[in-house]
Every structure is written in C-alpha cells, then in structure tokens.
C-alpha cells in the first residue's frame, strides 16, 4: 500500500539531514503508528510521502504508484489529515468538502451519502453550512478528516490526528480507523500518545534524529505491547532507568502530590466496566472502544481486530 525506500530529505540552507535512509512498507488492512520525539522527522516523512515536500533521495510508492513519477495516481489513492488542520477558512464546511470531492472526482451520489454519514459520525451537521473560520480547533480537525475521507482513500495518512479533539470524537476516529482498515485499506498516523498507539496499531515504527531505528509488530504480540514505552524510551536515547520508573509510577498514589493519598483511586483495570468515553485514555481496553462505538446506532462497525494480511508481500503487479 505504501512503500518507502531509502528516503532522504535535507532542507534547503540546512546542513542537517532531516530524514536519512528511511525504508518501510505498509500492508493492506493495517494501522501503522509512526513514533518519534519532537523534531525526529515524523512530519517531514509524512510531508514527503504525501507529496508536500520534495525529497533528495529514495522513492515512495503509494498503491504501486511512484509519488514523483506518477503523482496524480498516487495522490488519488491517499487522504491526508495535517497536524495544523489548515483549510480554506472563507469557505463553508460543505463548500470545502464539495471542493475536495470535485478534485478527487467523487460522484454526486457518493459524496452525498458519505458526507451524510460522516456528519452524523463526527457530529458536525450543525456547522457544515457555516464558514470554516467560525469553527473551533476540533471542528476544523473534523472537517479535515471528512474531506480526507470523502473519496475513501486506500491510504489514510494522519499527522497527530487526535490533537485538540474531544474524547468522543477521538473514540469515533479510532473506531473509524479500524473500520477503514477492515475494508483492506491502510491507516498511517503519527502520534506522541504511546497508549493510543499500543491499543490501536498493528505495527509501529520509531524514528529518531531522522533515522528509522525500529519497526515491530504490536498486534498479536503482547510482549511488544507491554514494552512499548520502555522500548521507545530506550531506542530514542532518552531512557534513564530512574526517569522511566518515574514515568511508569507517576499514576500511582504515592506519586500524586496533587491529591491526598487516601483520595487517589487506583487506575481502572481492563476488566472494569467501561462507562465514560473520557476514561479510555490510559486505562480502557480496546474492546471498550468497540463497545462504545457499537452503542452508536449510526455506526457501521467492523471488527477492530481485523488482522492485516500477515503474508502480504508487497502486492502483485495486478494489485498495483
């Protein structure tokens, strides 16, 4: 679905290599997390693979199309949600979505059906005919997501997608990511939220100082899941045993100077009943997202644990 080979990017007038010799491949049906510290090269990589930035070496293929040689075909298969959710603020939400749908040649019927569904899903119906400049941070993020999905891209790329979103919308997006990949599509997103990545992603890659330093499975690998934080801290060179222990322990009662010891509640265990979307961060099990999404009558839910094609070998010529 996405094949990045020896990607190299140096910004003009800079002697620092922003991204150096990065290679990875995304398979159909998987959610792929892209982790790294601030300035590690996540956004640069994403901007290169979406065609925003030119790059100095390597190649990027989207659904078999080289982004440099066949950019239109490659972009046709991609939907991108930027981290700064910048859009044309003078347009109304509907005008913007229609504009994007026109560019991706989406039929009138398809765009109407999809838009109706997304408006319910992301609770944005009340604002769709208003000018985007009046939207809040989260609403702009939602309209970006709707516009990115209006052509049902095979590869959905999101840069820090959960920033500024309310918990309910976050849960909706997580559920929709799973639904999207259950259809055989791929989701690629960057995040700083290790808990979210651990619960959502089938696979994860870690970038540090422009180099891809690790790429491993999470789905079906409990050990990797359990060790994600430690592994991240270690391989990004930020691991210090004492600090990491502090990080892990900070949720424990004795480490909460902001609360009297007796009033601090133990973290909700995974087996506890899930009651509030606000509680999912750090505590709730993936099944609980599913339960939540399943409660939404408008939600056409697909199994979240849809495994990606473990035997995927990069696709056949026909597929490409």
């Amino acid at each position, binding site marked *: 679905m996405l094949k990045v080979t020896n990607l190299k990017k140096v910004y003009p007038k800079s002697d620092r290599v922003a991204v150096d010799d990065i290679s990875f491949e995304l398979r159909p049906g998987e959610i792929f997390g892209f982790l790294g510290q601030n300035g590690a090269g996540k956004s640069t990589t994403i901007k290169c693979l*979406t065609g925003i930035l030119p790059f100095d070496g390597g190649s990027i293929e989207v659904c078999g199309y080289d982004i440099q040689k066949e950019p239109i075909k490659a972009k046709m298969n991609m939907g991108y949600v930027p981290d700064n959710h*910048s859009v044309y603020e003078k347009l109304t939400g509907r005008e913007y979505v229609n504009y994007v749908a026109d*560019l991706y040649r989406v039929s009138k019927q398809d765009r109407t059906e999809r838009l109706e569904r997304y408006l319910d899903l992301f609770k944005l119906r009340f604002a769709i005919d208003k000018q985007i400049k009046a939207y809040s941070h989260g609403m702009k993020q939602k309209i970006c997501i709707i516009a990115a999905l209006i052509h049902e891209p095979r590869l959905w790329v999101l840069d820090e997608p959960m920033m500024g979103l309310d918990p309910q919308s976050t849960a909706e997006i997580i559920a929709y990511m799973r639904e999207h990949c259950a259809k055989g599509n791929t989701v690629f997103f960057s995040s700083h939220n290790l808990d979210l990545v651990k619960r959502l992603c089938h696979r994860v890659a870690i970038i540090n100082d422009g180099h891809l330093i690790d790429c491993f499975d999470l789905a079906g690998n409990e050990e990797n899941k359990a060790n994600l934080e430690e592994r991240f801290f270690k391989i990004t060179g930020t691991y210090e045993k004492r600090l990491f222990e502090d990080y892990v322990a900070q949720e424990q009662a004795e480490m909460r100077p902001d609360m009297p010891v007796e009033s601090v509640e133990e973290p909700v265990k995974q087996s506890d009943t899930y009651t509030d979307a606000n509680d999912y961060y750090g505590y709730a099990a993936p099944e609980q997202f599913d339960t939540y999404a399943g409660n939404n009558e408008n939600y056409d839910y697909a199994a979240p644990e849809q495994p990606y094609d473990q035997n995927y070998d990069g696709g056949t010529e026909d597929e490409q």
Partner: protein
Amino acid sequence: MNDKISWLSVKSLLRLEMRARFGSGVDMTPKAKVGKALSMLFTLAIYAILVTGIYYLAEMFVRRSHMPFEFLVMAMTFTVCVTTLVAIGNVVKNLYLSGDNELLLRFPVSGKEILLSKSLYCMVHNIVINLLILIPVCVIYGVVSSAPVGYYFVMLAVMVLAAPLPYAIANLLAIPVMMLMNLVKNQFLLVLILLIAAICAGFILYMTALSGVLEYMRDESASLFSPTVMEKFRNFAGAAYPFKWYALLLGGWFSGYSSLDAGLSFLYLFLITAALSVAAYFVTTRNYYKIILVGVETEKVSFQKKIPNIKRSVFGTLLNREFFLILRSFNYSFQYLAMAVAAPVMVYYCNDLAATMGQNTVGAAIVPGLTLLVIIIFSAIIVSFASTSISREGNAFYHTKIIPVSYSTQILAKLVLYGAVGTASVVLSTIVVAAAFGTDAAGNLLTDLDIGCIFIISEMITLALTCLAIASDVKSPTFNVVGDGEMVSASKNMIISLIVGILVAAVFGMFTMVFSFVPLQVGSTVVIPIGESNNIYAILCGVSAVILAASVAALFVNLDKRYQKIAP
C-alpha cells in the same frame, strides 16, 4: 478592571505598539534598509506632489481669483475632514480591530492601561498627520496672500487648537463605525459595490481637481471660475461652520473681519473641542473594554450558506474556489475586483486629461499612444494582484500539493481567472475610450484601427503580465498571513510586477507617441514614415506577441519542478 494605572505597563505597551508598527530597526539587512529608504523616498515624492498641488490651488484662489478667505475656509474644511477620516481609520484599526487585543488581555495589564497606551499612539499619529497637512496649507496660504508676521504665530496657535478635534470626533464615531462594519461584514457583494462606487467617486473628484490645477498651470491668462462658481464658493465659505471659525481665527483679522469675530471663533472652537473631548473620554473609557471583548468574541462571526452538494469539473471547482476566496475578503475585493471594475472609469478620466493636455501642447496624434499607456498602466495595477496567487494560499498551501491535480492545471485555473478579469477590464476600458474619443463628436481622435490595435496590444500585455506575476510568486512566495489567512502586506513580487507593468506601458506608450511625429529609420531605410500608424502597431503587436509567448513559457516550462520545490 483594575482602576490603578501602572505607568511602567503603559510604557511597555506603548513600546510594543511602536515596535509592531515600525519594527525594531535592529538587525536590518542592507536589503531591508534600502527597501525602507526607497519607501521613504516614495512617500516624500507623494508628499511633494501634494504640497505642489496645494500651492497651485492657493495661487488659483488667492492671486488669480482674489478669494483668499474662501480658500482658507475650504482648505480648513479639507484639512479637518481628511484628518478626521484618517483619525477614525486609525482609532478603529488600532484601538478596536487590533489583532493584539486578545493577546494583551492575557497579560497582567488592565483594560485602561491598554487603552491609554494605544490612545497615546493614536494621539501622536493624529498630531503628526495634522501637522503634515496643516503646515503646508497654512504656510502656503501665508506666503501666497503675503500675510503679516503675526499670521504665523496665530498659525501655531490654530494648529494646537485644531489637533484634538479630529481625534475627539474619531473616538466618538469609531464605535458606530465598528457597528456598521459588523453589519456589512458578510455582505460581500454590497461591500464590493460600495468599494467600486467609493473608488470611482474619489478618483473622479481627484481628477477633476487635478484637471483644474493643470489647466491653470497651462494657461495663466484663462479665466478660472465663472461668476456663478465664484458665488457658490462665497456661499459655501459663509456657511461652512465650524471650519469657517478656523479660517476667521487664522486669517480673518487681516481679511476684513473684526477682532471680535476672531475672538468668538476661538471661544466656539475651544468649547466645541473641549465638549467633544470630554464626551469622547467618557464614551471611550466606558465602552472600550466592553467593545474589545465583544470584538474578540465576535472575531470569528461568519455567515451561513446552505447549498446542495454540487459536482463540478476539476477546473471549474478550482476557478470557483479561487474566485470566492477573493470575493469573501474585503482586502482582496478592494485590491482586485473593485479596482478591475473601476479601471475603465479611471482610464477614461486619465485619458481625457492626458489627451486634453497632450493635444493642446503636442497635437492630437499622441492620443493613441497616451491611451495605450493609460490602459496598460491600469492593467498592470490590476494584474499585480496575481503576483500573490500562491502566497495567498497561506497555511492551506499544502492542499495544492496533496490534491490529485497537476500543478499546471492549478496554475492554469489561476491564470484563466486573473486573465479573464484583466481581459474584462481591458475590453471595458477600450469600449469607454472608443466611445469617448473615437466618435465624430469627439473629433475621431481614435480611429477604428487605433482602437482595435490598442485592444490587441493591451490584451496581450495584460496576459503576459499575468503570467509573469504568477511566475514570480511561484519562484518566491511569501506565506505571511494573519487571521483568516489573509496576507499581511504587499509582497515584493507585487511591487516588481507593478514596476515591470509600468515600464512596459511607458515604453509602448512613448514608442507610439514619439513615432507619430518622428520617422523611425534603420540606417537609411525608413521603417515607419510619419503618420503610418499601421507600422507602429505591427511592430508593437509583434513585440507583444513575443513578450506573451516568453511569459507563457516562463510560467509553464518546468512548472512542476519549480512548484514542487516550494516548501511552506
């Protein structure tokens, strides 16, 4: 709101305000310094033209028409009106619409301190503007009317007295102006029509005044005003209160009025200024904090528009988006659409004036050249807007990179829109000049051949300038946007486009004018004999076609590669 005012905070805020307006001046590159110096020179040149205009007007009224007092009343009316308008704009912009209000409210400073610092800035601005207009008006009047020395001392007193009034009026009117602006905020078409009307009215007024001045400069023996017009001036001067009081105070005592009139004028002006200042103080201090809070809250007020989901072609949707992003911005509507629509009116008046002056001095043969010059200059002004077509994408520029539409198609859509607006403007301008100068009644100053060739050459140059303007922005866009994503100020591309356009206009216009009188010879061969305008047009058409082809090539050859290099 904290009642106690910290002068340290006020000082810091004032310094911040000054830095925001004029920059710190530290670490300026030599290029920036040259730019600033050129900008100052340009401002000085404009000011010098204004002062020269005032001088000729003063001579017209005082020496030629013997209406010194009438001139003084009209000059004071003009001065007070202009300074009041400038002050309203300044107060609304700095006190109420300033983007930093929200930021400042987060700091540990009170609303009163913000008001005080911004008011100090506005007051200084108001005084400077007052002095810049009043000094030349009063000094020129004194020189032209051979006023006694005492007049210059009175002048200083009047300048001190005149400064606070516009500022007080501005503070009182700023609030209703703000309310009006909020009312028409999303009435884009209405705003566009009003802008066009205002531009046309202002330009006609300006050209009429300029025409009078130039006529006076040309023929000193010509009678200036008819008895009816002079009577109208006298009636106006007799009833134009409170401006007449300024004139009475300033020059009444040596223009036949009594000292009592001057004394009473001073009293009336003092009382009016004091009353309005006190009223402005109370209105502003009581409402300022409330209004900037409302401003912050309603900054994002937008319109709602229900439309069905419409499917357009890729090209159509690109055009549609580009047009609406311009129409839905006051700044862009003014800079581009209003100017494009008003251009034919401006072309007519400029051409009329230039043709009249030219005919009287050189002869009717220069009219085609002048027309070409004027049309291309106005096209260049309109088309220079295209030099921000990439920069105006602002933070949403990434969007042009991720969509599955080739960069060439995207740029072509922009070219078609700007080309269409430019073409419409050229067509209208040509129709206007044809109707005004190409008829029997107008003496057939322009023949059908002139009109046709002027249109073809202007059109080719307009399209060429559009291509060059867009190409310059592809080469070096400036994504310097604020608020809703609008550009902060004119980019260097815009200035360069404008200069190139004016140069082309000057060369083409001069070429046509000069070779209407002088034969063009290459060696001993006469290429263009006198009176053979066909050859002049053939050469210019050929050159225009070459320029157009080169401009299209400059825009589209290797466009994908150049566009891909743009990194927001």
